[in-house]
């Protein structure tokens, strides 16, 4: 599948502060790629470099086949960008804003969006609530049917109802119509719950470093919360590296398996806990996976290690 976004060692520094370490990332066409991480992890910096708003200190990126630093006005006829702290022409009403943007694009359809999102056309942008402002901003992007939608913390500080409305509108846009090229979405968020329902890929940034990036289905398939009933405390084999947060009681042991889809879980359990009984494997939510990773201080795939290994090979 063709990548809509590719970065190669993309980095940004401000003097001695490194906002984003060299980052290599691929976002395939049609993906809903969620970029997650704490505030200040480098999500916005990465996105702004992709949108040619900031200039990288090192590395390069291509967006929709064009080098990010060559993105010009014409490129944004097929790229929609919404940010939580974007400065909009607040003196305009919602209707004026949409009318103003309409001639810039070859195609435009905002009527359905206005109805779906229940936008007040005659109200000035500066008088809108935060949720309504984000809805207006999203409508102004979805209206021209972009091939790539980039959303920087769009749901930050929104109440659940508005958030759901925005997600619904987004899912509808991504679903698209028959015959149309699939829409790719890059969305940043520091709230895992809000992107779990619709993201197809996930990348995790921590302190300016991309810790991992992979398909959501792979990630959730790999992680299982394992509970083992113990019978005796005979010493067994060493704990595999794919096991996280191992807790052993007198009658039960619990751990998180990070490679449950590829490794022989039952055999590993039998080796580590000889004479063990029942084994229960429970799927995990994105939140519990990240909590496990954070508590264990480990990442499922350390990209930097992987890259180094690749280079050595």
């Amino acid at each position, binding site marked *: 599948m063709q990548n809509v976004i590719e970065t190669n060692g993309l980095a940004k520094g401000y003097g001695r502060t490194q906002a984003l370490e060299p980052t290599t990332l691929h976002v395939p066409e049609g993906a809903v790629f969620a970029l997650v991480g704490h505030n200040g992890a480098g999500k916005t910096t990465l996105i702004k470099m992709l949108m040619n*708003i900031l200039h990288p200190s090192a590395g390069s990126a291509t967006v929709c086949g064009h080098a990010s630093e060559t993105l010009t006005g*014409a490129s*944004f006829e097929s790229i929609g960008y919404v940010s939580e702290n974007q*400065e909009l022409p607040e*003196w305009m009403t919602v209707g004026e804003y949409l009318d*103003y943007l309409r*001639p*810039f694009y070859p195609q435009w359809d905002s009527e359905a969006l206005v109805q779906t999102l229940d936008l007040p056309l005659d109200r000035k942008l500066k008088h809108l609530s935060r949720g309504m402002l984000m809805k207006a901003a999203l409508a102004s992007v979805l209206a021209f049917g972009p091939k790539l939608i980039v959303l920087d913390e769009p749901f930050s500080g929104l109440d659940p109802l508005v958030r759901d409305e925005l997600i619904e509108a987004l899912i509808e846009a991504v679903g698209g119509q028959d015959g149309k090229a699939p829409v790719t979405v890059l969305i940043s968020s520091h709230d895992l719950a809000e992107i779990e329902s619709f993201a197809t890929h996930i990348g995790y940034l921590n302190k300016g470093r991309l810790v991992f990036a992979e398909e959501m289905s792979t990630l959730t398939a790999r992680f299982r919360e394992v509970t083992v009933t113990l019978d005796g405390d005979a010493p067994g084999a060493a704990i595999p590296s794919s096991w996280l947060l191992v807790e052993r009681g007198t009658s039960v042991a619990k751990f998180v398996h990070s490679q449950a889809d590829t490794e022989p879980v039952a055999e590993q359990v039998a080796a580590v806990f000889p004479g063990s009984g029942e084994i229960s494997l429970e799927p995990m939510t994105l939140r519990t996976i990240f909590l496990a990773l954070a508590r264990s201080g480990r990442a499922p795939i350390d990209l930097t290690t992987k890259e180094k290994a690749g280079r050595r090979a």
Partner: protein
Amino acid sequence: MTSFNQTLHILRKDVRHLYPEITVSLSLVALFAWIAPAVWPGYLTKMAYPGAQVGAPPLMAVLLHLLVPLSWLILISRVVHDESLVGDKQFWVTRPYTWYSLLAAKLIFIGGLICLPMLAAQMFLVHYAGLPVLSNLPGLLANIGSIAVFFLLPFTVLASVTSSFGPLILLILGGLLYLGLVGLLGTYLQGSHAVPPYALVGWVVLTALILIGILLYQYIERKTGLSQLLLIWTPIVTVALLLMAPAGILFAHAYPEGTTVAAKVDLDPMQQQLSGGGPLLVGKNMVMTLPLEVTGVPDGGLVESNALRVELISASGFHWLSPWQNSGDMMRNGPTRVDMEIPATVVERIGSETVKVRLSLALEHLAPETPVAFQIDEADHTVPGAGVCSLVGEPGFGQPVCRYALRSPLTFVETEVQNGMCPLDGSAPTTPGSPARAGIGMHHNVFSFDPVQAQGLRFEVGGDSPEHPHLHALCAGARVQMRASHEAGGEQIHVEQTGIEITPYLKHRAVFSPVPPPQ
């Protein structure tokens, strides 16, 4: 959407958004057009301005010279900052804007809502002064161009590297301080050196080109830090280039070797300076005043010495050549004096020796035009230099006023004036008048908000003394003769004199008259 349509689309948005600022700016320009004549001689009473008794209109006219450009600054700030180039949060940077459509929209806005109204106001003023508008249009357009270069372009560039009006004002204040310091340094380094011909025009053109370059760069790349750095370096680089201008080549081109005018040093000892007080020091230089006898100036013409250069060669072989120095003496045929600065160290070195002096003078000819005579009254009479003159005011109290568009030539006026009042009904006086003269100075501003050069004529009659000035009246019907002079090219002449000592020709701080002994 085509680029042109995008430009118009952005322009329409700006006009709709900024109509309050536009209204204020246009009102101020309209007010300026109405009130500017208040400072023209005689027009304060003619226009019957409200508040004229307390001098409000002239004050307002002066104030508008500040308010109008301030309104332009605000308007430019608002229109440029509407799509700010500074920062990373603006909505428009991720929309299908093209930099050239955006820049074109801003420039059309500035041209259409600042330049055009000002041009219209200036055309109105020219027309109101009784001057032809159409023939003065090229000059007015050039004047608007100068206003654009000196005000609008710097305002636009500064707005493009700031995010809002507050930082813009701070940058302007800081920039003025910085320019003042660079100017002081430049003046210090320039010393008494004359600015070569073409150099100032070249400096303005170069500075304008650099500013245009920075504006384009900022609109194309939006790299504010680098643009600001370029702005900081621009005054230093351009002033340095100005100081390094090849004066010899430029003076030789503007003032080719000529033979029309001749001059020689007047060796009459009576022409030497009296040695009262110590030698005058200008910085580390002494001033030598050389008496000259000038010949060859065409009849009725004048010659202005714009710059000079002096070369001294002593009997002992010491040689010193000065840079081109500022001068500014008007010369006719006959005796005259020219001042030149010589370093004190040079005077100390060769002051007691006889030297060979070689003086080069850069002269500008002012050729007389055919005199024009007319009978002055309230009607406008065309005078040399494409101006008009008339009596302005109530019959019997009219003041002779001449108006020109943008530039006035050096003009000598001859007429007959009454020592008393003119007849109150505006008729010609019955008593013979006294011959009187007046002059109109040569003015040519680089730019001017008010394009009308209005000059009231102040006549002098033979026998008048500065201590006891007489009030002379020019009455309707008086015959006035005006003779203007126009610039007729430059030439460079050389004066050479051997065997003179410098010391007797040094200028002194003061010439003290001997104090009479006590009775």
